[in-house]
């Protein structure tokens, strides 16, 4: 095995690793490919070049929360989806509302979620979100009972093609007209 000597060879190594990973690879993972003979700044530059190289191909190199990954161009996804015709089951409103509260108000306890939704949190709802690896426990609130504090995971951002929570639609966008007190 011979270490890469030029930019083309380095990009080939990056490309093959990213195409076969099946999940995002972070800068630290990608640095391992070069056994310590690579600067982070150079790596970023190579990734930028790689992204441009693939611009008019069928896959695109994108950056999400946990790193870089190749994915099919969105316009092709509709065709690929035909390979798996059975529709993915939808999450219930309870699940999605709980997820929205955790995403926008994290870290939150079950009590916080119950206060906002006005109903008791069904343990099943939390389990579904934890099993999907979209939320996890990040600590306990220092109040009686030490309730768990929940937050969204990086995997949640990966699945929504986001780099950070800041890329979620701003919460202010969802505010509706005031409820008048004097009628």
């Amino acid at each position, binding site marked *: 095995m011979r270490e890469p000597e030029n930019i083309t060879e380095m990009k080939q190594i990056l490309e093959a690793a990213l195409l076969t990973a099946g999940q995002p690879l972070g800068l630290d993972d990608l640095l391992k490919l070069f056994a310590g003979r690579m600067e982070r700044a150079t790596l970023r530059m190579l990734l930028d070049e790689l992204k441009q190289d693939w611009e008019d191909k069928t896959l695109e190199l994108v950056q999400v929360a946990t790193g870089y990954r190749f994915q099919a161009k969105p316009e092709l996804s509709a065709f690929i989806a035909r390979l798996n015709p059975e529709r993915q089951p*939808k999450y219930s409103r309870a699940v999605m509302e709980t997820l*929205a509260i955790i995403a926008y108000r994290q870290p939150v306890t079950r009590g916080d979620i119950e206060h906002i939704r006005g109903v008791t949190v069904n343990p099943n709802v939390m389990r579904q979100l934890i099993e999907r690896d979209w939320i996890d426990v990040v600590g306990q609130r220092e109040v009686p009972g030490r309730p768990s504090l929940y937050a969204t995971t990086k995997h949640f951002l990966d699945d929504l093609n986001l780099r950070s929570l800041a890329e979620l639609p701003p919460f202010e966008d969802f505010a509706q007209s005031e409820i008048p007190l004097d009628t």
Partner: protein
Amino acid sequence: MLITTSDIKINGEALYELPHDLYIPPDALEVYLESFEGPLDLLLYLIRKNNLDILDIPMSKLTMQYMQYVEKMKAIKLELAADYLLMSAMLIEIKSRMLLPKPEAIEDEDDPRAELVRRLMEYEAIKLAAQKLDDMPKVGEQFQVADAYYQHIADIKPPEVSVDELVEAWRNVLKRAKLTSHHKLGRAELSVREHMSSVLRRLQTDGMCEFSQLFDLNEGGLAKLVVNFLAILELAKEGLIKITQQAAFSTIYLQVSHAE
């Protein structure tokens, strides 16, 4: 009737046919369970869709109705009954605080409805956020991640070997070498059967064959020639081949014997 009908307007028109049990009709319980996520959701619906002043509530009737409702709920979904009960308590508290005369000393007290309105509006925003999250493209649905096949091979380090292990291995080899020296007869026996097969296979394909052609003098040495000869004799003895010679010292021919 809980609310006078003239209070209610839908699309600017007064509604005269009011649902009899507007807050939580026990009869329509199962419908509510499915379509509303709880008392906040229901309140929000009543305020937004029906333009009702839900905060101006006849308390005694509401209380009576809620108790009926809770009775029915006990049989179906107790924890949800508790949620609605809490909400009714809150509504009654708000109402009672509004009815009480305000002493001048606490004139600037917040409107008791403000907290409920704040919660309703926050819940409304969360509801929309949830819909938005649901609609956002996701991996496995609208995004397909590249996953080219790659046979993952771990970077395996060669195992360490000590001198002692090497000595032990050599001893084992010696031990086994001694054992094999006693098995020469067995091996020869086996190879006769093996040669029988190969001679027979050769005769099957070539038909008639000269005796001398069946011996390869350049390979295997004397032992192999002997074994081959034994194999031919064995085949003849078992009647599998026919050996013919026209005259003394002329060419000997072999062929597979066929059933007459």
